[in-house]
């Protein structure tokens, strides 16, 4: 019993720690991609630890089964969503940040600025 309690406490602690680090990263990182990097990875792992810690408290029950389901879906869906976001940003021409401040020119697969304007217009029913 005590072992389970310790496990649960460990999971919750580790999970919240990772989530705090994630939040810090989202606030402190310089551009979209690095923030996404922090949010996508940290969120998934932190949430998983918290939920697994809760599973340890709940023991073998329906609640645990539901929690395990949530962990599974978070593990599958969070990276997918992050991937979709990053790819979308890349295609739309969001340029990564450079410490030296040199411009990051357009690469293959990215839209040019004019193309992006067109897409924005298309989506807002522009004039």
């Amino acid at each position, binding site marked *: 019993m005590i072992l389970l309690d310790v496990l649960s406490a460990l999971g919750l602690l580790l999970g919240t720690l990772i989530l705090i680090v994630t939040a810090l990263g989202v606030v402190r990182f310089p551009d979209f991609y690095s923030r996404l990097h922090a949010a996508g990875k940290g969120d998934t792992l932190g949430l998983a630890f918290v939920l697994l810690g809760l599973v340890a408290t709940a023991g073998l029950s329906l609640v645990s089964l539901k929690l395990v389901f949530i962990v599974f*879906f978070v593990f*599958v*869906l969070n990276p*997918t969503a992050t*991937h*979709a976001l990053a*790819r*979308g940003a890349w*295609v739309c021409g969001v340029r990564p940040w450079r410490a030296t401040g040199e411009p990051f020119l357009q690469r293959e697969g990215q839209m040019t600025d*004019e*193309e992006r304007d*067109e*897409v924005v*217009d*298309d*989506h807002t*029913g*522009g004039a």
Partner: protein
Amino acid sequence: MMRPHTESLVVRFIARRSVPFIQLFALYVVAHGEDGPGGGFQGGVIFASAFILLALTEGWGRGRSRMPEPVSDALMPAGALLYAGIGLVALLLGGGFLQYASLAVGGDQHAQHLAHHFGLIGIEVGVTITVAGSMVTLFFEMARPKHFLNVPRRRRRHRPDPDA
């Protein structure tokens, strides 16, 4: 016009596989509405989100083809009709408006109890249908790309030169 399918294989694969789970979860939420957190409104929104996910990953047109305009247009009033209809039937059977127990005409107390439950679930299903239809319609109408149909891929729109 933007390239219609920019989403990667991974995203499309995962999104398509998760649609049935989302819909199942929506039904679970609706069924739980009677004696726990959940209910028609929440369930309807979740149900609609499955179609919205499809549209986000597969493009507007293929998303719409899973829930064509006539269908979603009909769903909204149909759900409301179910709701008002149950209320009206209860009223015509001699009870009050939405007095579900009177749906069990001549039944004993147990039957009335059952009728109350079924009336409530019927109402919830009506709400679900209406909300799902409304949410899908809202999304597709707001996100409708300009000149959605018959636009060749990668067409450049003619723009007058501002300096000329």
